């Protein structure tokens, strides 16, 4: 046991002390946020300013189209296409629109906008929106409908869902559950891949550098394998914790450091439909909904499935690493049977997060090769009703049995594979290694 700790400690320290670890751990979230901020910045602050002359011969707009800081509509009288064109060329306006007197506000409303240069996608959308808004306004007036009347007609009814058990089952809560389930399932999926592959590369390194036998003469192969798995697992856990802290911290810090940017982010959010929905959640009772979600349980389950899934798969990755030689291509083909269930897992998860009680979701959340990914998607919908307690406990028990099973199998293959040089074995041969007497 002591030796497993020694090995785990080395695996942990050598990785954590590497420059690449620092870079990926600290710079990655920063970069991520940087890109995010830049994207919003660019999308919001378009530099293109448009001053458009409107010759409203039919007088349908009554001399008014709302503009904004970038787009201005200036109404002109007694101008023809010819003179306007000239003024655009002179640089007085960036473009012009002529509404001929044959235009009827109710059916044929043709507005042709002529500009000096081709209009960018963002500005084009904005110009369209402004003109359409003005048209809508005028039409409503034509029908004698005030905008307050319209608003009250459009107002949504308040429809509430609840379960027979009397628990409220609000849509907002379902949305949050969906998000939590999806994100945590996806995170575990990534964990399995990144750190599983890291274990595999570590084992391959030991084999290629021929240190394996030197170490095996001091410790059991099982100890070496478990030490590696624990050490890299600790690296993963630490990396995740740092990421979470950084993400949360940046989320709070960014508006403080760049108040201007934050304001823009906010205004861009307001335009965004889904964000608007989030806004209403905030107003109607986000606190209420969040308190309906059992966070301690979800966090506990996340850590449990994170560790369980990692242990289950990393043992398999270790056994692939021990079987291959110098050629990384060999690893690719041997890895396929391991990566397939992970990918199946994520496919089932995307279904389970929508229909957490479907047969496929229940199967996926119990079967240990899929359960780390799938179960998280179901748990977020609530333990007790959506996920009966017996299912959760069975799933956990099966996962523990699963990783004991894969570790046993991997250890047997590993102790043979790590000392074998030469040709790449097939899974069939590795299966034989596992079941022969040693």
């Amino acid at each position: 046991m002591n030796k497993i700790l020694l090995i785990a400690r080395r695996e942990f320290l050598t990785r954590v002390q590497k420059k690449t670890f620092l870079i990926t751990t600290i710079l990655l979230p920063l970069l991520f946020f940087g890109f995010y901020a830049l994207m919003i910045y660019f999308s919001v602050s378009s530099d293109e300013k448009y001053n458009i002359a409107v010759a409203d011969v039919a007088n349908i707009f009554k001399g008014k189209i709302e503009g904004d800081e970038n787009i201005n509509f200036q109404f002109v009288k007694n101008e023809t296409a010819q003179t306007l064109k000239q003024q655009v060329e002179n640089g007085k306006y960036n473009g012009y629109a002529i509404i001929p007197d044959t235009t009827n506000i109710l059916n044929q409303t043709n507005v042709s906008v002529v500009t000096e240069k081709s209009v960018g996608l963002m500005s084009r959308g904005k110009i369209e929106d402004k003109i359409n808004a003005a048209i809508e306004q005028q039409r409503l007036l034509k029908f004698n409908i005030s905008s307050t009347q319209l608003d009250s007609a459009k107002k949504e009814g308040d429809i509430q869902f609840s379960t027979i058990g009397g628990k409220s089952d609000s849509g907002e809560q379902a949305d949050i559950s969906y998000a939590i389930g999806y994100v945590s399932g996806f995170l575990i999926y990534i964990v399995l891949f990144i750190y599983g592959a890291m274990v595999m590369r570590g084992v391959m390194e030991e084999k290629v550098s021929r240190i394996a036998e030197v170490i095996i003469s001091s410790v059991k192969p099982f100890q070496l394998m478990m030490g590696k798995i624990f050490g890299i697992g600790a690296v993963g856990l630490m990396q995740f914790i740092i990421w979470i802290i950084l993400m949360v911290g940046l989320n709070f810090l960014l508006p403080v450091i760049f108040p201007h940017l934050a304001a823009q982010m906010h205004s861009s959010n307001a335009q965004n439909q889904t964000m608007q929905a989030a806004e209403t959640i905030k107003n109607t009772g986000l606190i209420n909904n969040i308190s309906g979600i059992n966070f301690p349980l979800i966090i506990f389950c996340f850590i449990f499935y994170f560790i369980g899934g990692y242990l289950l798969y990393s043992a398999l990755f270790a056994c692939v690493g021990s079987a291959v030689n110098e050629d990384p291509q060999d690893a690719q083909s041997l890895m396929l049977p391991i990566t397939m269930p992970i990918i199946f897992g994520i496919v089932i998860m995307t279904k389970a997060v929508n229909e957490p009680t479907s047969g496929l979701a229940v199967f996926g959340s119990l079967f240990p090769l899929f359960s780390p990914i799938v179960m998280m998607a179901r748990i977020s919908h609530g333990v007790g009703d959506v996920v009966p307690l017996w299912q959760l406990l069975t799933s956990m028990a099966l996962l523990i049995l699963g990783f004991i099973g894969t570790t046993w199998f991997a250890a047997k293959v590993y102790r043979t594979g790590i000392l074998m040089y030469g040709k790449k074995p097939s899974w069939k041969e590795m299966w034989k290694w596992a079941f022969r007497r040693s």
Partner: protein
Amino acid sequence: MNILELHHLKKYFATQKAVDDISFDIQQGSIFGLLGPNGAGKTTLLRMITGIFYPDEGEVILDGKKFDPLNDIIKIGYMPEERGLYKKMKIGEQAIYLAQLKGLSRSVAVEKIKFWFQRLEMQSWWNKKVEDLSKGMSQKLQFVITVLHEPKLIILDEPFSGLDPVNANLIKDEIYGLAQRGSTIIFSTHRMEQVEEICDHIVLVNLGKKILDGSVQQVKNEFKQNVFSIQLSGIPSAISNEAFEIVDEKANKLTVKIKEGFTSNNVLKYFIDQQINVEGFNEILPSLNDIFISLVEGTKATTRSFQKV
């Protein structure tokens, strides 16, 4: 006293009887040569002695007790043929780590490593990485790591490969020193001249079986062919005697093979009777190399074929 006894060790793999009923004893403090052609089963045998493999049958007795891989590892230092180190790890740290895996505490490990590094003039290596070392240098480091916990039994598989003569001598001296201080050394190689020079006792394995066991002198005597070399003041024109026949003639030096039923005195008497001065006379013993080749050749050992067990 025997430090190691092997009793009827067997290890069968799917396609080969890698070790097929091998027994021998090794005396404490001796330098023991384990010889054999490629694929004879040497590495498998060593892996069973070091506890990496469990024998299918038979037992290993270390230091008077049945070998217990878990607790006896500290008594053994093994330098495998397929050896290497973590390339990116600092040398000092790496040596400490490997010593700790053997079961030494950190402080003891540091102390011993410092002692050995000083002894072999490697102090400046401490903060270097293994990838900075040449092959010979890393070989030296590997040797230090193998022996630094002063194990009772040191197993070296081809320890001199990649070493220049100066460093090879340095390591050779250390091996003698360790043996004098009571360690027993098992030395696996197919370089016969080194075995002849270093080893007290040898065992030759081939096709998984032991085919020779004894001290170097014993083995040589066993395989001697009564061939002598005689240095004479002058060679007579015609030599004919029933006691010997001439194998080779070079200047004033004759190589003769004494026939059965005669002794070296018969040869000497012949030349003395002819008034020829005998300036030198000695027996030519076969080299281990010759013995090795004569024993192994023709057994298809070089192309050991796969077979069903």
